[in-house]
């Protein structure tokens, strides 16, 4: 008879000490140096997502997609430096005399918005952990604005993408980052209402991925589907990405960045000791591996052969799900969390396209929105302290019930000023020729597009 190791039966680690509230605390010199080093590797995740955005779009929009990745990051960084960082409030979080907009209700303070110095004044004199927090947020906002860019591929104008990045970096991201990372009311759920350690999001499952996924949904709804995607009769038209190699290589790059991102987030927001960093990285890898194995199996079973782009989506969904809880879940739990993400990702991608008429070329709504949501719920299940699940549910309710309608409203108004959708002629020519005047692959022969009958 084979004895089953108890670790496989109980997925949560009972020996993990309770996680302290996600409020910035002073770091040792070693922790500062390691976190800084990790954060300098984290942009590889952004590079990976940029490659995936480009590879899953069409060849006639590849240059616009890649340039758009750069432009959106640039706009988001500038706007976040001017105003966003002030509202996020991480530059002076935890310091005496911190300025923030606080409401008082039910006898508790509810910190709603940071009111720190504009234009990053005082950055050099801020505490080391605050400087790292601001750097983390710069990377996070750059990642957030890239996620909807892939969903609007082949019809979303560059100017509208940049305007959306500005809105996200100025208003929506700082608001969410303050609630979760800047000592806001979600971070204080533990101290104010005894809900675990407060809302936990070490790697940005909520602040980056759910936010990006929800924005992607709003963009897809407002811009509409690509021409010919949903014909008058029959099922939707398949419009596969033009370069599977970009997509898979993007997944590999994303892994490196994600390992760094989750480890840095664990030190900064979950106060994990340095000894917990290897475990966090292993959990991240296991979650992605479990997700890939699951997606590979599901697509092999459904279609007879594994699907490359869906497998890439599954891998990324595993990484996203790990963002919420890689810092404290056990390896077995991480494998399980990734496996669940890998099962629902291909199924949800199919449901969104076939049943709900949502044209999302990169699958960001599923990969980042739904997998981020699942990671946050899983964090509640696998966190060591009681009340954590309720804290996670309150955070999810805030994101879905307040932040998503806010995003939709802002983008709806923005669409009136800067129209999102390119004109039909531009869509037929391709975004490269229409917006940039030249294609990404000038020596390639472009064949006739059968979807424009």
């Amino acid at each position, binding site marked *: 008879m084979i004895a089953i190791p108890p670790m496989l039966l109980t997925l949560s680690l009972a020996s993990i000490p309770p996680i302290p509230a996600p409020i910035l605390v002073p770091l040792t010199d070693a922790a500062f140096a390691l976190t800084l080093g990790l954060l300098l590797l984290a942009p590889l995740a952004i590079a990976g997502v940029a490659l995936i955005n480009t590879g899953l779009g069409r060849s006639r929009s590849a240059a616009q997609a890649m340039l758009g990745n750069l432009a959106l990051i640039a706009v988001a960084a500038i706007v976040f430096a001017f105003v966003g960082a002030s509202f996020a409030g991480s530059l002076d979080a935890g310091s005496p005399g911190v300025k923030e907009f606080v409401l008082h*209700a*039910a006898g508790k303070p509810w910190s709603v918005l940071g009111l720190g110095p504009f234009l990053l004044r005082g950055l050099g004199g801020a505490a080391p952990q605050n400087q790292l927090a601001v750097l983390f947020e710069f990377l996070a906002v750059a990642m957030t604005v890239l996620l909807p860019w892939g969903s609007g591929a082949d019809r979303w104008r560059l100017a509208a993408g940049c305007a959306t990045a500005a809105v996200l970096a100025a208003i929506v991201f700082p608001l969410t980052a303050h609630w979760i990372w800047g000592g806001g009311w979600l971070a204080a*759920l533990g101290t104010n*209402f005894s809900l675990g350690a407060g809302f936990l999001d070490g790697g940005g499952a909520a602040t980056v991925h759910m936010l990006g996924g929800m924005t992607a949904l709003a963009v897809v*709804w407002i811009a*509409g*589907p690509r*021409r010919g995607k*949903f*014909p*008058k*009769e029959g099922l939707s038209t398949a419009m596969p990405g033009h370069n599977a190699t970009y997509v898979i290589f993007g997944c590999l790059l994303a892994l490196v960045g994600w390992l760094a991102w989750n480890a840095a987030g664990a030190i900064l927001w979950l106060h994990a000791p340095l000894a917990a960093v290897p475990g966090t990285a292993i959990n991240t890898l296991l979650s992605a591996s479990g997700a890939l194995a699951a997606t590979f199996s599901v697509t092999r079973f459904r279609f007879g052969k594994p699907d490359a782009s869906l497998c890439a989506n599954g891998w990324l969904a595993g990484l996203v799900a790990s963002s919420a809880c890689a810092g404290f879940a056990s390896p077995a739990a991480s494998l399980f969390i990734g496996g669940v993400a890998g099962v629902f990702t291909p199924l949800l991608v199919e449901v969104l396209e076939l049943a*709900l*008429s*949502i044209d999302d070329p990169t699958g960001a709504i599923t990969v980042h929105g739904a997998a981020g949501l699942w990671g946050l719920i899983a964090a509640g299940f696998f966190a060591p302290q009681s*009340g954590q699940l*309720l804290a996670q*549910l*309150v955070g*999810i*309710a*805030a994101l*879905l*019930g*307040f932040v*998503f*309608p806010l995003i*939709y*409203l802002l983008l709806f108004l923005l669409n009136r000023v800067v129209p999102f959708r390119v004109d039909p002629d531009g869509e037929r020519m391709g975004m490269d020729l229409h917006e940039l005047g030249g294609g990404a692959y000038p020596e390639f022969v472009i064949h006739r597009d059968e979807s424009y009958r």
Partner: protein
Amino acid sequence: MKYAGLLVMPAGFFLALAALALFPDPGRRTAFVICGLIVEGMGLAVAVRGHMLPRGENRP
């Protein structure tokens, strides 16, 4: 219908907030937060339904 669903979603959020402020005991608090999430889910479902493309001639 597109916008009705999106208007219902904040109602679920305020239910969750009310649960925090009004109920100190974990049971009722959890129940209200879950009710808030269900309301948000219903709002999202209505919004999704409203955004679905009509079948036939009106498709782009």
